[in-house]
């Protein structure tokens, strides 16, 4: 079975986000970028499936600017076999919407015929939480979202999902789209020899046009602003003072 893993290049999760003064977006110039943390978990899970002989090839895909090549090399260094880069934007500030990403991924799935697509449940930049579900809809496949456990058993996959009330376990037909949550696994670090080896692994370059997908946005970004800030608070000296402040504020 081939496993396809889409990965996104996003602002590193440790970097403080700055909104541009003119309201045009978030400043991404000269900012450290990394693989979306949820996608790292998806890559790790795919590699573990291969190590457990449940998958024989792991293909990673990134759709965006050409610099996403670095993100793909990271996935290859972790253990993915080959990569596809779909050049779909020239400016790092251009975010390709989940619907367009899902359409490009559908075209790639049609070509590659994977048995499983493993994706992060959301990207930490636009926080949309949509691409996996959308791809599943376009393919007419089953979906198992927000997975904290995954067990492939022949033509079915058992997926334990993190939901509002606790955990839900479902059984989905393969081929399937599974989107991964935080607690599915802990991604490995790539070793130096593997980083060197990854440079020689195949990386195909394509464009959105190769797949006949129009990536023009459906959501026009009118403006991007700073969130409301909170008024500064006070440090209290003791539990008693805390209780009296809370009583004054009518909070208890």
């Amino acid at each position, binding site marked *: 079975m081939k496993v396809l893993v889409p990965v996104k290049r996003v602002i590193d999760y440790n970097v403080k*986000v700055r909104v541009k003064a003119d309201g045009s977006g978030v400043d991404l110039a000269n900012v450290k970028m990394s693989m979306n943390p949820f996608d790292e978990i998806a890559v790790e899970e795919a590699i573990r499936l291969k190590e457990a002989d449940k998958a024989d090839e792991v293909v990673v895909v990134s759709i965006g600017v050409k610099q996403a090549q670095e993100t793909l090399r990271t996935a290859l260094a972790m253990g993915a076999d080959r990569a596809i880069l779909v050049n779909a934007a020239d400016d790092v500030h251009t975010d390709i919407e989940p619907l367009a990403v899902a359409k490009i991924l559908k075209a790639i799935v049609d070509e590659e015929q994977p048995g499983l697509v493993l994706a992060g449940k959301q990207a930490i930049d636009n*926080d949309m939480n949509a691409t996996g579900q959308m791809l599943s809809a376009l393919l007419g496949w089953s979906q198992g979202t927000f997975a904290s456990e995954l067990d492939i058993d022949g033509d079915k996959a058992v997926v334990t999902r993190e939901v509002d009330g606790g955990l839900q376990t479902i059984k989905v037909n393969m081929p399937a789209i599974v989107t991964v949550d935080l607690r599915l696994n802990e991604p490995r670090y790539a070793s130096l020899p593997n980083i060197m080896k990854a440079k020689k692994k195949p990386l195909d370059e394509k464009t959105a046009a190769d797949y006949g997908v129009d990536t023009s946005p459906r959501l*026009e970004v009118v403006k991007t602003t700073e*969130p409301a800030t909170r008024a500064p608070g006070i440090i209290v000296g003791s539990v008693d003072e805390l209780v009296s402040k809370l009583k004054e504020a009518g909070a208890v």
Partner: protein
Amino acid sequence: MAVLLLAEVNNGELALDATAKAVTAARALGDVTVLAAGASAAAAGEAAAKIDGVAKVLVAEDASLGHRMAEPTAALIVSLAGDYSHIVAPATTDAKNVMPRVAALLDVMVISDASGVVDADTFERPIYAGNAVQTVKSLDTTKVITFRTSTFDAAGEGGSAAVETIGAADNPGLSEWVEDKVAASDRPELTSAGVVVSGGRGVGSEEDFALIEKLADKLGAAVGASRAAVDSGYAPNDWQVGQTGKVVAPELYVAVGISGAIQHLAGMKDSKIIVAINKDEEAPIFQVADFGLVADLFEAVPALTDAL
């Protein structure tokens, strides 16, 4: 304009708070029809009919809709979509599972976690874990939206909308439900609680989370946790507050042993009053706290529980 609102239905019961908050957001867009779907959904439909601002309720009962499996639920919504300009839901995990699927089937974008309505086409939503707010104008004919419940007040009760029973769509038969593991609790539900007490990595163990729970019970509060506490196994996943967990905005939020990582703040910084108890005075949580107490939580929390 007409709005179809997917009600949050759990085991045949309406999640009133989440649904009524989404009604508040939706009624600004047009006449609201609520869809109550489930293996049993009639009682949920009756309850939804009483929410102020609901014009009509559709009840769809079918075994395939029993556990809000994405594929049959999305198929049902798509079969109804032609009559509506907006298809919306409260931003619960169930809706986040279903609504992007609906949007893709309709060839439109989804607007996830909208926190504000500017006009019928234009919405605000937090991005980058709430570190920026984006205003987006939809160019699609049908708008598919989930609303972040913590930013809307619940609509009141007193309505008496007509209830109509409809059939399910064909079940694509792609998946089946196996089991739910839902912890029974007498405490208030996290996203609708007036008071939330959350513990972080500083609590140190699953056993010591009892300290957090005792304080919560004294305050009649729901219990939350940071991602670090959940990852460490101190607390179950459904307690997680943050960018990828639940978003809460209670009257009072007490953060205990939580450093205040960006992704945690994303889930609680709209709370009315924030209390932080942490022994590290440099912890970023103090920057959003109204009242900060620099103290060892193992002394301060029992003392606070006794003093209340």
